[in-house]
């Protein structure tokens, strides 16, 4: 496996970065090999970003176009922020995978195909009239066509496995080949295979053999003349791990509960792409995390409100359609002024929409999707790793101000992974919590003069017996009140409480020039693409700054003033212009939009181009 041996017969080239897409049937294990490649890149020391892209169907008909599952990773020796616009390498395990992904590839991309899967039946399912490996459809690409089924099967000849079992190992053969091609070590994947198939040693052995066979095949085949090296990235010193957004979200909330000295409660109903948060939290019973898989979305938030009343750090999680179902109960959380967090992992809408694709189209629903005047906090993480910090921030706001918080993640952040510097526990500030003790004449709506928060009085405390609910309450006493003056006071009070936190969150500080031709304003999961695009433009001498909002309600106190320092304000979003509408309404600024609603993240190229056009 040493580089020396390889370099004798093959030419090694050093690259700045590469983007690889693994694609195959949803049963081919492409997410798995993509994940393993990512771990190896992480341990190797590259910077990286990933984008899994899988169908909504669990197992669409084998070989069909809708059944194609893909996983893209860009890895690099320098700082990168996106999974790459156009893959440099496509691994296509069947004709459908080739067909679906071909249009996305860079001009002279390398294509590795499993020729064994290019049977008349599969070609027909993919809608190919003739075999694309034979004509000149793929002219311009560097095509490597290998009989991966056969090669895998040959490598496993001495094993007792059935043909079907041997065929299942082909993804590891393909992974081994790509490992060789990018000069990667096999250790981390081999270790994983052994531990994953601990109880099935024959399978572990076969997968290990397939992986190695793919690697050695790359080394020995005459067809491939060169291989590539992407050296370690220069990043800030520290301990790193790989993290995906949903994972960071779950861990962030467990951490927040510990920082607040609270039991964590999570009431949720399974929904793509939020379910992984439930799966992750359900593992952590030894942290005192109590998960409750409710009968529906409404029950999930109802249980959360109940747990919050009982003194838990209470969360619910969902995606767009679930947020719609939870809206009445969110109103209840607002009027009862209880602390809770709603995680909304956005996906394509409306209605069921595109369950496995990303979008940012729930912003206005988060702001306004309830009856009555019903403001609450809204935060949005910018990167997978940032989900951890914004989870803690969401809890801080909820507890300090006694109000619900919506945490707006999205499908791209949820499933995308990046290297993440592991924070030190001692660097994370505690979240102060106060529960009043026994007293006489307790007033459940007597407010903290600074935050306007009402007390978080817990059942079980003698003397604090009180009633809350969805009917309007008299300020201070908390008694039911239909008084018109009191209602206006309470509506304004609830709004002022949220707005008042603007001074308790970081000020808006754009990257790039403090004033100039253009400010690009974004929020949520588009951070990486916006950062890369604006950095590129600044590198070309353009006066373009980038502001990424992580607090959406309230906005940072200085936002209006910042917007006015630039000649133009452009708001790129994966929706039809929701933040833009809010900025225009709030600050009377002539913001324009760059909008994409394709269920896919922005590509750096298209974004750079659109911003350039807007610059004029």
């Amino acid at each position, binding site marked *: 496996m040493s580089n020396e041996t390889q370099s004798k017969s093959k030419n090694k080239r050093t690259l700045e970065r590469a983007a690889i897409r693994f694609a195959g049937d949803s049963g081919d294990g492409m997410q798995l090999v993509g994940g393993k490649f990512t771990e190896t890149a992480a341990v190797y020391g590259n910077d990286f970003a990933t984008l899994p892209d899988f169908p909504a169907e669990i197992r669409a008909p084998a070989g069909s176009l809708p059944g194609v599952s893909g996983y893209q990773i860009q890895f690099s020796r320098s700082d990168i922020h996106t999974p790459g616009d156009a893959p440099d390498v496509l691994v296509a395990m069947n004709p459908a995978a080739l067909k679906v992904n071909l249009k996305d590839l860079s001009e002279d991309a390398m294509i590795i195909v499993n020729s064994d899967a290019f049977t008349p039946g599969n070609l027909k399912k993919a809608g190919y009239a003739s075999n694309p490996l034979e004509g000149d459809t793929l002219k311009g690409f560097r095509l490597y066509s290998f009989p991966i089924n056969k090669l895998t099967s040959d490598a496993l000849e001495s094993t007792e496995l059935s043909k079907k079992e041997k065929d299942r190992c082909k993804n590891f053969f393909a992974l081994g080949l790509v490992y060789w091609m990018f000069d990667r070590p096999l250790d*981390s994947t081999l270790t994983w295979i052994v531990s994953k198939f601990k109880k099935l040693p024959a399978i572990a052995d076969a997968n290990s053999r397939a992986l190695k066979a793919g690697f050695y095949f790359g080394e020995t085949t005459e067809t491939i003349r060169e291989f590539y090296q992407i050296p370690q990235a220069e990043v800030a010193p520290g301990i790193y791990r790989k993290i995906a957004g949903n994972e960071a979200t779950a861990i962030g909330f467990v951490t927040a509960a510990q920082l607040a000295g609270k039991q964590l409660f999570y009431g949720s109903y399974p929904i793509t792409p939020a379910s992984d948060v439930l799966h992750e939290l359900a593992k952590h*019973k030894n942290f005192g995390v109590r998960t409750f898989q409710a009968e529906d979305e409404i029950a999930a938030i109802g249980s959360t409100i109940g747990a919050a009343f009982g003194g838990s750090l209470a969360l619910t999680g969902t995606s767009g359609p679930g947020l719609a179902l939870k809206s009445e109960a969110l109103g209840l959380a607002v009027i009862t002024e209880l602390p809770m967090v709603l995680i909304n992992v956005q996906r394509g809408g409306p209605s069921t929409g595109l369950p496995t694709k990303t979008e940012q189209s729930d912003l206005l629903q988060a702001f306004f999707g309830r009856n009555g005047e019903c403001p609450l906090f809204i935060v949005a993480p910018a990167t997978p790793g940032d989900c951890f910090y914004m989870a803690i921030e969401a809890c801080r706001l909820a507890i300090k101000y006694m109000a619900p918080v919506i945490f707006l993640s999205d499908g791209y952040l949820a499933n995308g992974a990046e290297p993440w510097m592991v924070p030190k526990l001692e660097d994370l500030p505690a979240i102060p919590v106060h529960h009043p003790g026994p007293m006489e004449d307790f007033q459940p709506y007597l407010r903290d003069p600074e935050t306007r928060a009402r007390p978080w009085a817990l059942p079980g405390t003698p003397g604090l017996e009180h009633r809350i609910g969805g009917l309007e309450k008299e300020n201070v006493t908390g008694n039911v009140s239909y008084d018109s003056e009191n209602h206006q006071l309470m509506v304004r009070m609830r709004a002022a409480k949220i707005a008042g936190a603007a001074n308790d969150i970081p000020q808006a500080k754009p990257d790039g020039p403090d004033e100039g031709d253009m400010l690009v304003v974004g929020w949520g999961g588009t951070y990486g693409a916006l950062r890369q695009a604006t950095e590129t433009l600044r590198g070309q001498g353009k006066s373009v700054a980038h502001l990424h909002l992580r607090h959406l309600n309230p906005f940072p106190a200085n936002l209006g003033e910042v917007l006015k320092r630039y000649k133009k304000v452009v708001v790129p979003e994966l929706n039809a212009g929701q933040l833009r509408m809010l900025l225009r309404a709030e600050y009377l600024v002539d913001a324009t939009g760059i909008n994409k609603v394709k269920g896919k993240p922005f590509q750096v190229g298209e974004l750079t181009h659109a911003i350039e056009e807007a610059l004029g």
Partner: protein
Amino acid sequence: MSDTTTIAKEQTKKLTRKDYESSQDVRWCPGCGDYAILATVQRSLAEMQIPRENVVFISGIGCSSRFPYYMDTYGFHSIHGRAPTLASGLKVARPDLSIWVVTGDGDGLSIGGNHLIHCLRRNVDVKILLFNNQIYGLTKGQYSPTSEKGKRTKSTPFGSLDYPISPLCLALGVETSFVARTVDTDLKHMAMVLQRAAEHKGSAFVEIYQNCVIFNDGAFKGITERSVKEDNCLYLEHGSPMVFGKDKNRGIDLEGVNPRVIETNGETDSLQVHDEKAAEPTLAYLLSRMQNPEFPVPFGVFRSIERPSYDEMLVAQEETAISRTGPGDLAKLISGPETWEVKPQ
């Protein structure tokens, strides 16, 4: 300091019904059956000496759902049909509390039917009191899911078309561990049932026949009025034969899988004996199907079995997890299964 001392003193003194009354004026219609239920609940809690601070009443929307405001305990008047969800979350978070849900036939069986089912099937340790008046009161008189078919109301001037749902059949169908029925006019019986419900560990479901004087007055008169009650009601007693009638001269026995009414002539040996602890809810289900005029309507505890409650099992799982792996190590959780170090250059 002085506050705590006063409260400590209060804690040692015996609780009376008054202690459970909140300062709010009760605003149900004069003559509403809810008054009797409120008074009986307050009296029963005092009887059992359950500390006020450990009691939480949770309701949804409807006339019955104003209940928590009148109790000087912790209370939550939530949204329509969702009280069991809040109660479940609260019980999971705080198994130490005595949690009661107050709901009605509309709140619990129409808009909130799903939550009721799931709360009961999970056997969450909450007590659910369903005030059944067979009408929508707060929205002023539309038919409800328990209204008899053909009911003429504002929304059904030609008579309702829906077949009614039986709350007890539903509760037994999801294997609720405690199922009972009582009525707002029989305070003693109601107190007994409430006490049994409170003592039960797990979900307790109590249907309370409740009279709406304004929109459905006299709905249960033909069953529970003093002059007919003995002939039209069957009072269930665990281990006793099912006897009813003014002269205790009639009873229930089973013919195959069907109950029937027979004349006893003082001979009760052949009668069906009530067994609220039967593992299978079959007998309780047959009882829940019995309606006037063919049968007397059963009152009392239909079913009361022991099975672990959701909250108990959850706490046990948590304890097992901690004893197996020790309390969670946060630093380890954050750093995950694999890390790498980037050293200063």
